């Protein structure tokens, strides 16, 4: 009996070491990809801005100066000032905070729920799969923005609503991917072995199948993160997200784009560039991770 246990422990140890080597190999490969390095660097800059924003920013993002409204970029205000005389550079720096909290939390929520639903759909198949499949289809028939707008109209606007709504909308999308991955695993020998050992369905789903479908879930998370940033910013731009006077890129563009025709381009351009740099950075990182994991 003890001999068998020893062998098992040894095998588990070897597996663990293998995994560590594989992980180190993945990280080494990622660091050699220029796309990943550039993306990760930009992302890091924004994360630093999100955490230490108020300390880095030259002015308070809320400080108004009614004598210095709509000022073009100068050495005192490198990104100019807005309609209330607030420093745009400070607003762009601190504006990274909300988006970098809301989007990852929403994606995490969607990934956790989607993984659970996908495991259940793929593992049980049959009627559960059919019913959930129809509900997923119904959700997918609506564009994400439309679903989110409806839900927020019904529930009211707050950052928590935003996280929950986007998380819930992502759930069926992620569930579909996880389900497909589980379908390929459920008939393999290790699942049958676990069943013969008398393990419960929950244990088989979460302790046996889940670790083996982990890479598609990681890929799904990074891809969805870019999409969550896209969606949160769009909803905020439409007035369904972060509320004024919080500094936020989407919100600032919505507030200031009315004065663009008067020539105050700096009040929207830097926010637009900040958004573009963030989404492209996340895409570069997620594409590189996907490329490395699927090889």
């Amino acid at each position, binding site marked *: 009996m003890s001999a068998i246990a020893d062998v098992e422990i040894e095998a588990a140890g070897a597996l663990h070491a293998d995994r560590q080597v594989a992980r180190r190999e993945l990280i080494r490969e990622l660091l050699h990809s220029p796309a990943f390095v550039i993306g990760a660097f930009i992302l890091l800059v924004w994360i630093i801005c999100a955490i230490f924003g108020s300390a880095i920013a030259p002015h308070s993002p809320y400080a108004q100066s009614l004598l210095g409204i709509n000022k073009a970029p100068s050495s005192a205000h490198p990104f100019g000032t807005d309609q209330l005389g607030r420093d745009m550079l400070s607003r762009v720096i601190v504006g990274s905070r909300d988006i970098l909290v809301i989007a990852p939390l929403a994606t995490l929520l969607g990934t956790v729920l989607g993984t659970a639903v996908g495991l259940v759909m793929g593992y049980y198949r049959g009627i559960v799969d059919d019913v959930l499949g129809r509900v997923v289809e119904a959700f997918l028939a609506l564009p994400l923005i439309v679903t989110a*707008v*409806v839900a927020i109209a019904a529930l009211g606007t707050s950052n928590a609503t935003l996280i929950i709504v986007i998380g819930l909308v992502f759930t069926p999308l992620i569930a579909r991917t996880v389900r497909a991955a589980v379908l390929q695993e459920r008939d393999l020998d290790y699942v049958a072995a676990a069943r013969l050992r008398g393990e419960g369905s929950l244990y088989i789903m979460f302790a046996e199948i889940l670790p083996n479908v982990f890479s598609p879930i990681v890929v799904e998370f990074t891809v969805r993160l870019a999409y969550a940033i896209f969606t949160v910013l769009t909803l905020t731009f439409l007035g369904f997200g972060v509320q004024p006077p919080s500094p936020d890129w989407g919100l600032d563009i919505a507030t200031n*784009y009315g004065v663009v025709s008067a*020539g105050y381009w700096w009040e929207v351009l830097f926010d*637009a560039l900040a*958004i573009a740099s963030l989404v492209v950075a996340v*895409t570069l990182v997620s594409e590189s991770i996907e490329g490395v994991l699927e090889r």
Partner: protein
Amino acid sequence: MTAFILKRLGLALVTLWILSLIVFFAGQILPGDAGRAILGPLAAPSAVKALDHQLGVDQSVLQQYWNWITHFPGTSQQYQAPIGPILTTALGKSLKLAVFAFIIVVPLGIFGGVFAALKHGKWQDRTITVVGQSALTVPEFVSGIVLILIFSVWLGWLPVSATAPPGSGFFTSLKYLILPVIPLVLILFGYIARMARVGTIEALGSDYARTATLKGLPRGVMIRRHVLRNSLLPTITVVATQTGYLIGGLVVVEFLFRYQGIGLLTYNAAKNRDFPMLEACVLTIGVIYMLVTLIADISFSLLNPRIRLKAAE
């Protein structure tokens, strides 16, 4: 084939019914009393009660759902007018924008994707892939605002608004649509080019492509006759599924450019909590999406003998 179409149609109807339930109950989550929410906290209780009765919200939920379905699309609270005509006009305008976007992006996306695949691994391929992928992730309002800055504010070439003055000719109104269409085109280009690229690379590496090359077909003929025919098939489905993303994009673009289409209508309904209008808009969007996917699925199977035969079994 008929059985296949009927089955797909049946499934679409079931999905649509579930969608109607979801949309209807989203309207029910609104906390508190609809009459109270509209009239405000100072209104007399009798007035609230009368409005509740007029809106039908004092009935049971099932009864309300039945009323909604049988009187679809109903009356807008915000406009105090039947939803049907408002919705049709808006739909027509959005259709104009959408068709314009598709006319530009479908050939462009397919050309870009096929070209990238033929240059697989070279710098042209990498450029198209990176540009397409970046275009895909930048929100429409961001590219829209940059376009407004460049082409309206700085160069003064194109108007900021999307709606041409009344009575202007076809080409003038087309000119007003150029700026709004570009953000939509950028997003769709990414998806379509990616699918066309993957499909073409796959087809180029297939046995039949090799056979065609080995039997001495010139490369151009081989690509036209054997590769494109197979690689563009999946792209049809992608173009159809993009209708969903396109409508999502319409909400943003129509809001940014103040264009009175179904996107702006949905936005206004949500902003003003006009639930009958919102429900009608959302359900219409769902129906459009499902119809387009259904047509795509059917044409896909008509063009693809493998699926056609499988369905006949």
